[in-house]
């Protein structure tokens, strides 16, 4: 299976959208001026329900908690989080689509919803079947090694070492078929002409424990998830999968600098409402969630998760553009990978 990385992937849109806002200057800046908005027809007159298709402890659970807190602070409307984990987010999505579209139920979801639709168009399209209220976290991936590792110390020496292992080197990953992680790893291994055994750990702690304990040779992850290990100097990044070096990781080379010419896929988390919800309610929800992003508590949360390193904010239009770009890019990649795109 060969990839032609030089062919411009159809998601030029994504590339443009992603690079346009890099740099910490805009990151975290509030872009909603109205500090309050009248409730349309008394909506909401009861608590909102937020369906979260992942458990309370993971990245989605945490962002849902932080956003719910921020929106409640702002509007005094409480939000009950309803976690429905399972099936890589498909179970929560199905439950959400079956709920009445009256604006009282909102959804948290990640880029998995876009890649799932790219693979199987019968799955809801987050930019068409749903209305994005806000995307509040956008992040990139990195490759990490132990700080005290002596067999290799940077990306070039790592690649050289991996090649010498003849396919026996290992990297810990969350590696579901067609996932963002798998696709990027595919790009990396093809572009740097190395073979590495990916080992899929679906829970964070064992994944990090595996690198810490020397069970695997490297780790593929997003920086916010391993912040503790970076702060304690247990792990160090040797490659950033992003078009330019983010300020916080200015000494880590990007994949492009290391000669890998592919558009990076990003992890993004956002909030949605059903497309059939009454439009005045949707407008109010857009305001509440976009302004919720500006709340101090939410900003502090994003800061702690390395989510202000690049621009994490997309309003509805920005989110639709980002999702459409991601879907097109995934679809291209899946076709190249020979997956059965429906």
């Amino acid at each position, binding site marked *: 299976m060969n990839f032609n990385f030089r062919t411009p992937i159809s998601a030029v849109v994504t590339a443009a959208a992603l690079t346009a806002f890099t740099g910490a200057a805009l990151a975290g800046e509030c872009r909603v001026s109205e500090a309050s908005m009248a409730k349309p027809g008394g909506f909401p007159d009861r*608590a909102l329900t937020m369906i979260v298709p992942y458990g309370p402890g993971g990245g989605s659970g945490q962002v849902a908690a932080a956003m719910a807190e921020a929106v409640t602070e702002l509007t005094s409307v409480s939000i*009950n989080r309803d976690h429905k984990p399972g099936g890589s987010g498909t179970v929560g999505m199905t439950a959400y689509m*079956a709920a009445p579209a009256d604006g009282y139920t909102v959804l948290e979801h990640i880029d998995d919803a876009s890649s799932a639709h790219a693979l199987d168009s019968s799955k809801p399209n987050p930019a068409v079947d749903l209305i994005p209220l806000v995307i509040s976290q956008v992040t990139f991936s990195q490759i990490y090694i132990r700080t005290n590792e002596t067999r290799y110390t940077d990306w070039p020496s790592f690649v050289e070492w991996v090649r010498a292992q003849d396919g026996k080197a290992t990297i810990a990953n969350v590696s579901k078929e067609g996932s963002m992680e798998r696709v990027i790893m595919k790009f990396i291994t093809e572009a740097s002409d190395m073979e590495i055994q990916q080992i899929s750990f679906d829970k964070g702690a064992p994944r990090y424990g595996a690198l810490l304990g020397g069970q695997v040779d490297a780790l593929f992850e997003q920086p916010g998830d391993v912040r503790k290990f970076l702060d304690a100097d247990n792990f160090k990044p040797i490659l950033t999968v992003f078009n330019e070096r983010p300020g916080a990781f200015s000494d880590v080379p990007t994949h492009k600098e290391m000669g890998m010419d592919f558009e990076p896929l990003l992890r993004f988390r956002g909030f949605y409402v059903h497309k059939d919800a009454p439009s005045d309610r949707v407008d109010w929800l857009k305001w509440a969630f976009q302004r919720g992003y500006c709340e101090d508590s939410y900003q502090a949360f994003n800061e702690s998760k390395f989510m202000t390193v690049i621009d994490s904010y997309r309003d509805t239009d920005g989110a639709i553009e980002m999702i459409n770009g991601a879907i097109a890019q995934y679809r291209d990649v899946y076709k190249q990978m020979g997956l059965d795109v429906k």
Partner: protein
Amino acid sequence: MGNLKNSDLVEIVFWLLIAVIFFSVSFNFNQPIEIYKFGATGWPRVILALIGLAALGNLYHSFKNGSKTQKGRVGASEAPDQVYYSSLTDYLKTAWILVIPLLYAISLKPVGFYFGTPFFIALVMLAWGERRVKFILLSTLFIYALLIILFMFILNAPLPQGNVSPFYDFSAFMLKMKTQFDQLF
């Protein structure tokens, strides 16, 4: 036929059917996983093969020893006192006890917790042989109120709201009452 009884034959047919059905369904997801040699089917198929072998062992054991208990086993004496059925009505009564909770569970998605629960509580009591109308009504009200106070008012638990009108509207009404109650404080 050794010590075999009809129930032993039912058992072996049951296990072999499970093994065969699951094995044939496993072809639906028999796609290779690029990073894992044994794919998605390797592990379940080994389990199915072991089920087949253990079922044959079980049959052989019954053939040789009947339904005797192997010495040194623990936790096997969990069989409660035998209940004897004298008529078809007895069987129907037990079947009813088993079916009601399943019906309630299936109804949760469309009907939701708030509307369906009092009916379920009352039906369970009826099926359990309770016939005092006043007892059923008061107990139902008491249990329902207790659950609502504990899970809805104190713990804010997200319970199923249903997705079909008018049941969903009833859940919405309950949640609105709760919000108004909260605003009092």
